[in-house]
């Protein structure tokens, strides 16, 4: 509780939390309620300007943009969060194991990951999408595979450098098991780069999903995501730039919020900023 209070007490923490809160609330709301059916087209009412019935106007099929953005928020955010789970959990596990065990496991894993990293992440995702076929879970799986090497390498690097510390040696000389040392002494000191990477990844995933949608391999239309709303807008961008600006703005707000919150979180988790339990 005190932690949350201090996190929100900082300008970047508060701004980030507000923006993220806004995005998440919109996403949750969009999953159950939208002013109009986001899929229902109304060809007589294409490219309508903002009006009380359609606060943000309508798109090229006469669909309500606000409704589409709300439902799109749900789709995009759930893909973003879903994609973070596998790389962060599996990547931390693999990276920690490789960095701490060293030896053949480390060499083999790094070899495989380096091979994966040699391809641009998006290219791997593209290939996988072509196999799986465009659907939401395919996007999550493909992007997870694409981002796994980055997380693993970052965690492995941090574990390697922290393992050199004298306090890790001190733990070994106290007769602590290697697993205990890894969990208690090494991993907590590797969190800062992982948090930064995770927050950045959330942003990349939003963009990557829109890139996949742009190529027709993302969430299949008519189901809206911020990415494919943006992709659909490209044909009309010159005459109706607002069609592209609105989903772009949504993505930007989400990224800004995540980055601000991530920064604040990293600073706050640093013990140097924590107050003592007792003040002497």
């Amino acid at each position, binding site marked *: 509780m005190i932690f949350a209070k201090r996190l929100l007490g900082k300008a970047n923490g508060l701004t980030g939390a507000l923006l993220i809160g806004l995005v998440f609330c919109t996403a949750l709301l969009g999953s159950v309620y939208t002013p109009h059916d986001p899929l229902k087209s109304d060809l007589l009412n294409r490219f309508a300007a903002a009006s009380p019935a359609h606060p943000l106007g309508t798109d090229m099929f006469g669909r309500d943009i606000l409704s589409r953005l709300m439902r799109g928020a749900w789709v995009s955010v759930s893909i973003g969060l879903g994609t973070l789970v596998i790389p962060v959990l599996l990547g931390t596990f693999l990276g920690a194991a490789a960095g701490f065990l060293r030896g053949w496991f480390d060499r083999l894993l790094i070899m495989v990951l380096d091979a994966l990293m040699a391809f641009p992440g998006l290219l791997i995702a593209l290939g996988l999408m072509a196999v799986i076929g465009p659907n939401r879970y395919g996007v999550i799986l493909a992007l997870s595979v694409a981002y796994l090497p980055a997380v693993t390498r970052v965690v492995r690097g941090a574990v390697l450098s922290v393992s050199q510390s*004298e306090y890790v040696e*001190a*733990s070994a*000389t106290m007769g*602590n098991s290697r697993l205990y040392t890894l969990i208690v002494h090494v991993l*907590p000191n590797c969190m800062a780069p992982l948090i930064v990477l995770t927050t950045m990844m959330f942003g990349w995933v939003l963009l990557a999903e829109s890139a996949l949608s742009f190529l027709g391999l993302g969430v299949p239309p008519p189901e809206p995501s911020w990415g494919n709303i943006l992709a659909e807008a490209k044909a009309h961008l010159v005459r109706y730039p607002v069609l592209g600006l609105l989903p772009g703005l949504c993505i930007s707000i989400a990224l800004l919020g995540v980055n601000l919150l991530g920064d604040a979180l990293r600073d706050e988790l640093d013990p*140097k900023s924590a107050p003592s339990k007792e003040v002497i």
Partner: protein
Amino acid sequence: MGNGTGTGPVLSIEDLEICFGSAPVVKSVNLSVAPGEILALVGESGSGKSMIGRAILGLLPGGGRVSRGRVAFRGHEMTGALPPRELRRLRGKEIGLVFQEPLSSLNPNMRIGEQMCEAMREHTDLNPAQIRDRALEMLRQVRLDDAERLLNRYPHEFSGGMRQRIMIASVMMLKPALLIADEPTTALDAVVQKEVLDIMAEVARANGTAIILISHDLAVVAAYAARIAVMDKGCLVEAGSAAAVLCRPQHPYTRKLLAAAQLGAPEPVKGAAGAPLLSLEGLQVEFAERRFFGLLGERRTQAVQDVSLTVQPGEFVGLAGESGSGKSTIGRAIGKLVTKAAGRIVFDGHDLGGCSAAEERRLRQRIRFVFQDPFSSLNPRMRIGRIVAEGLRHDRSLSADERRARAEDMLEAVGLPRAMAGRFPHALSGGQRQRVAIARALISRPDLIIADEPVSALDVTVQAQILALLKSLQREYGFACLFISHDLHIVEQLCARLYVLHKGRIMEQGETGTLFAAPRHPYTRRLMSASPRLESGPGGLQLAQVGPADAAQDGESAFFDATGGSEAPYRLAEAAPGHFVALRGAA
């Protein structure tokens, strides 16, 4: 000679006050430095001595500012509104700076030559060939051989001492009128420290450069400085000629500092007779470096060669040598942090390599470690209480509350307040952290402590406190200790017996008292003269002198000298009862 302007001071500081925020870290300091003079600025960490050095150059770290007073360098107001161009011209050309950390003060990406010439190009209009000649001359002045080849090499190819010499050479190239050396040798070990300081003083004398030598170690600078200024908590408490400050200290803080530098009479901790608690038999450790992925075979380096030593229960045994001598490796081999290539480690009658895993774990619980660097030996994400209590983790009979209580008791025993348990390591000073490390080691009441340079990262005054603490804790708990250090005088304080190590071999071993009274091996003498200590002489305090090494002969046989190739046959001969010296030749 530097282009001196008469006989006035090179630098004069008047009523200087430096503030961080609203808190002054340096309060009304008055100092002056005459041309060619060496002034030592001595104080503990946090006394503000480095801030003065930085203020002179106008390089105060962010948040710091000169709030009062003036710094005048040859008539230039360094603190006033000097245009940045002018300030830059003075830095480097007229005032040089040598930092503490030679490992990070040279750019690892630049060749030595480029780095040395950089400042010359900036500040003079000599042509490249002239600059190169000047660089070569400077490298010879700091006694580096093969200067031509050296220019094309990178910093990582050199040891800390050589890098510091390169640093001095590149700073002195411009013949500055003033050199500010901020703890230039604190990161180096004793033998190298003496070398570097000798060279620095010599080069400065040759170029007519004045030096402000900033250090926490009064004994080290006393040999070089004409005048000594002592700082405490931002105030200049005493300044005067070296002899006057040493012999007739006026301020209580100076006396305290001098007392710490003397370390008092040695009080060796003798152990019980009988079977040894720890004995190493023919220990060997080697490091294998694989060449080209192992295809070209391995290059093996012998870090420890055939070392045998014993520690009696309750005894303090010293293990001394310069860095690279393998002394830390022995401690690490005992703690299984490196694997041994051969030899036996016998603890309390059990061979640590030859008993069952459970037995070995049980035995190892009775050995605990204290490391050198208190800043990296404590997990930054754990509170002190938890760090100390971790030493009890394997004692299953205790509840969490009992552990906490025991940890707080232990904190009190090492002289820290109980409330410290709630803090994180970064909030503690170096000395306090080392106390925490000692508490963590002692909380499980071990029989043996391996202390690897436990005080060398600390200020002199704090060193004395930690040594006294170890002594009193030993009386209370009765543990034995293998005390690893490069500083013979610190080892002398506590240890009943002493092993002197060089290039992985024991050079000399014996009772500390006899070894100090009559050191036989030249290497031991070198080590002794390298760490200067003050002692009371007829005219007050003076630097202790150690006679030069005898001839390289001891009776019939020559001393074993590891520097001349370690392949020569080696044996330890008993020079006096219990006093062994390394000789060349077969037994």
